[in-house]
């Protein structure tokens, strides 16, 4: 699922605690030895399902995907080793570049837009006002809603002729776009819907970050005559950078995997305007049964995500302040 911790520190307590337990049985060093070995054995037993899962569903498949990416394989006949041909084909495949471009477009707009909106709304919610819990629950609701149902709903609202969105725009005298039907507006439509769906998640994350900022910092600055905007810029924003970092990393990873919305709302169209990488992988793998080519593409997706994450972790020292 979605999740990357900002900083996970091994508990310093682990070792001293074990030692304390050993103090109690210090008179019997042999029993201690056997207990330690026993505890380790239990730990490995507890972790056995995870070890199996790690090999069968995580590390194994990733290694296999890498190997398959050098083959041509339709599952019906045995795989044929073709070296780098899949990667060469990808480099010349205009559809792949379109998909990559669309995915980057989606990410580059939806992530910053979603973060800024969520930050603004969370800041407003951070005032101790009655009814905030209810508002928070309302904003969070779309996060839990079925992506298929929500995609159908927005496809209906975006309908150019009878859609409620164009009706409301016409009421205030704004032009009525063709939304999903027009290649120019199709991706922005998907972006608006995706930002709407994910907003509550980032709001709750930011709200938690905001609530951890000590109030007396604000009060001290206020006494010194700092205005609201200055306090936001000089106190809130720097102290919130770990949360912003977390939300950015997560947002980039999830938005690079965008698929369901475009699958339901536009089938990648019109004219491939909303074809995304995962859609392209899905089609090659499971519609055209090109397992080798799909694996090669998925590995490129993985490489992109890996590089983006590494860059972000590197860059964080420049702007993220850990208290």
């Amino acid at each position: 699922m979605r999740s990357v911790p900002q900083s996970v520190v091994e508990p310093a307590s682990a070792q001293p605690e074990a030692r304390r337990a050993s103090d109690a049985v210090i008179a019997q060093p042999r029993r201690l030895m056997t207990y330690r070995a026993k505890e380790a054995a239990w730990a490995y037993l507890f972790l056995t399902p995870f070890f199996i899962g790690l090999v069968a569903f995580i590390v194994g498949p990733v290694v296999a995907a890498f190997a398959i990416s050098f083959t041509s394989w339709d599952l019906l006949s045995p795989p044929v080793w073709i070296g780098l041909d899949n990667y060469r084909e990808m480099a010349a495949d205009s559809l792949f570049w379109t998909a990559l471009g669309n995915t980057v477009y989606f990410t580059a707009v939806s992530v910053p837009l979603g973060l800024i909106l969520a930050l603004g709304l969370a800041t407003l919610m951070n005032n101790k006002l009655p009814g905030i819990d209810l508002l928070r629950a309302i904003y969070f609701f779309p996060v839990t809603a079925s992506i298929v149902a929500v995609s159908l709903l927005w496809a209906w609202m975006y309908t150019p002729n009878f859609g409620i969105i164009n009706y409301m725009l016409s009421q205030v005298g704004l032009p009525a776009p063709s939304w999903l039907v027009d290649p120019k507006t199709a991706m922005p439509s998907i972006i608006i819907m995706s930002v709407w769906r994910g907003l509550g998640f980032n709001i709750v994350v930011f709200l938690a970050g905001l609530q951890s900022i000590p109030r007396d910092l604000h009060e001290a600055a206020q006494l010194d005559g700092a205005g609201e905007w200055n306090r936001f810029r000089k106190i809130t924003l720097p102290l919130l950078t770990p949360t912003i970092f977390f939300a950015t990393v997560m947002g980039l990873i999830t938005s690079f995997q965008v698929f369901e919305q475009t699958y339901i709302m536009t089938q990648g169209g019109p004219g491939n305007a909303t074809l995304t990488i995962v859609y392209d992988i899905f089609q090659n793998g499971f519609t055209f049964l090109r397992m080798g080519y799909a694996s090669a593409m998925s590995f490129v997706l993985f490489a992109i995500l890996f590089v983006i994450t590494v860059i972000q972790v590197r860059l964080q020292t420049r702007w993220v302040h850990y208290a």
Partner: protein
Amino acid sequence: MHSAQTQRLTRHALIYLVLIAGAAVMIMPFLWMISTSFKDMGEVRAWPPTWLPQHLDLSNYHDIWQQYPMLLFLWNGFVIASLTTLGTLISCSLAGFALAQLNFPGRSLLFLVVLSTLLLPYQVRMVPIFIEMSKLGWIDSFKPLIVPAFFGSAYGIFLMRQFFLGIPKELKEAAILDGATPFGVFWNIFLPLSKPALTALGIVAFVTSWNDLLAPMIFISTFEKMPIALALSFFKGQGEALWPWLMAASVISMLPLVVAYLAAQRWFIEGMTFTGLKQ
């Protein structure tokens, strides 16, 4: 009235105004979904659109129920999501307990492995997993969707580990000195204490599975075996979409989770944003 107080009141009024306008944007699409689900095609094509249906007509719901085995789709989704949840809870609480409370060589390294697997998207693994599942003869069954959950998920293990870290180690030590085994400690002491974490994780696992589209798309092909989310994705079809009808189907697919959300929204929110809150 003091000007400072007036200023405060204006400020709060403005904040409410913005927040309520935003909340309306979040919730109105769902009200529109419900409203549409009661209309007929004639009313849907009307201009200007009617905000409320002209008559409370349940025929869309009735038709769907007649034409498609909706109860079966809901049941399939429920079976898959429940068993996935069960598997996640068992495997993740066991692994999380070991990582938080037991001492063994390689613990820190293993925790790093758990964290790094969080970064591996499903899409990168899905082709080999599909091949694996087809070799096992599990295609077009619930197994590929359920069985992996019994082998742990990085998110769940991380969540449970963080929770178990918060329980004082003295509890474990005292029981061990009294002769309990680590499993006894886990089962009799730590598991009963971890109901909040298990609830949060259970909700996340259930919601994720219930709403999932990609994995069921890959593994399930028989209509009668489809979970509700996948079945719903087939309803749109070609040509002009029957919106009232689709909205009714969407309402049905969302109803079970909406009821659960109304009853326990706090758990949904805490579970689904857990890693953002605690480090």
